[in-house]
């Protein structure tokens, strides 16, 4: 019985060793890099009200600028386009024409060398729309400003006001 077990063991070891040398293979490690864009809201924004007819995200006036973060995993594969508010998405009935101004700027980058020109190279598509080519991988933080001024210096009606910033990440 012991002899039989020993024989089986020897055969097994021999077979395993033979297999290992005769069928040596390169084991592939495969990956598919698809890349992606991630849009995040880092800081919420609020309007402050320095006077009866102005709403602003300026900190000096009690507001807060929203900050959006965009992460890309492929260089030169995306552009990002921001549209700051040019209207309220919800508000009480307004008593005059509201004028909007606003802007988007780079507030921080994860790669100071390769992202240094993002702000200077941005394209101002229109008064409310700015575009950036994301030529490096990593994270970029954008801050957005918005000022709404009621016509005729008339006081804004009482109520809640909401406006949207639109962030679009578009593959190139």
């Amino acid at each position, binding site marked *: 019985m012991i002899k039989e077990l020993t024989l089986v063991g020897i055969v097994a070891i021999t077979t395993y060793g033979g297999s290992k040398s005769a069928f040596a293979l390169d084991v592939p490690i495969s990956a598919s890099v*698809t890349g992606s864009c991630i*849009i995040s809201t880092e800081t*919420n924004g609020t309007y402050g009200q320095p006077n009866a007819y102005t709403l602003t995200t300026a900190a000096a006036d009690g507001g807060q600028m929203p900050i959006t973060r965009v992460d890309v995993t492929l260089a030169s594969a995306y552009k990002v386009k921001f549209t700051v*508010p040019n209207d309220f998405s919800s508000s009480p009935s307004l008593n005059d024409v509201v004028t909007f101004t606003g802007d988007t700027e780079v507030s921080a980058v994860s790669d100071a060398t390769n992202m240094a020109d993002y702000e200077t190279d941005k394209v101002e598509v229109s008064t409310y729309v700015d575009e950036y080519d994301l030529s490096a991988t990593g994270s970029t933080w954008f801050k957005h400003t918005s000022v709404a001024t009621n016509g005729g210096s008339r006081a804004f009606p009482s109520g809640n006001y909401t406006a949207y910033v*639109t962030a679009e990440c578009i593959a190139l």
Partner: protein
Amino acid sequence: MYRTLIFLLFIGVANAHQMSPTYPKWSDSYIDDLSVTRVRVFNKREDVEYYEIGVFDKDMRPIPFVTQYDLRGIKYNNYAMFDVYINKKYKQDAVYVCSESKLLDIKVAVSSKICSKFKD
């Protein structure tokens, strides 16, 4: 009086919307005359429950397409796969497939849209 007003612009928490791949490809579907592609949308926005899929030409004009749900609920910290079908006669015109957050809560004020691109 205006001191009593509360003005809200952007409310929410740090959150994210992700879509991949960057460059999807069309492949033949099991239905004649239709091509199909698959995109993945990840929702890490607590403030968004629904995303809408669209197919667009180079000028961002909509292209006819079919998917099971063009407006689909995606729970927070979950992802969804969208199989997008298009008639082959539109394939050459289709340049972008996009996912856009649908802001059902009016107090949330950042709308996000991500577009992947079809390349030859």
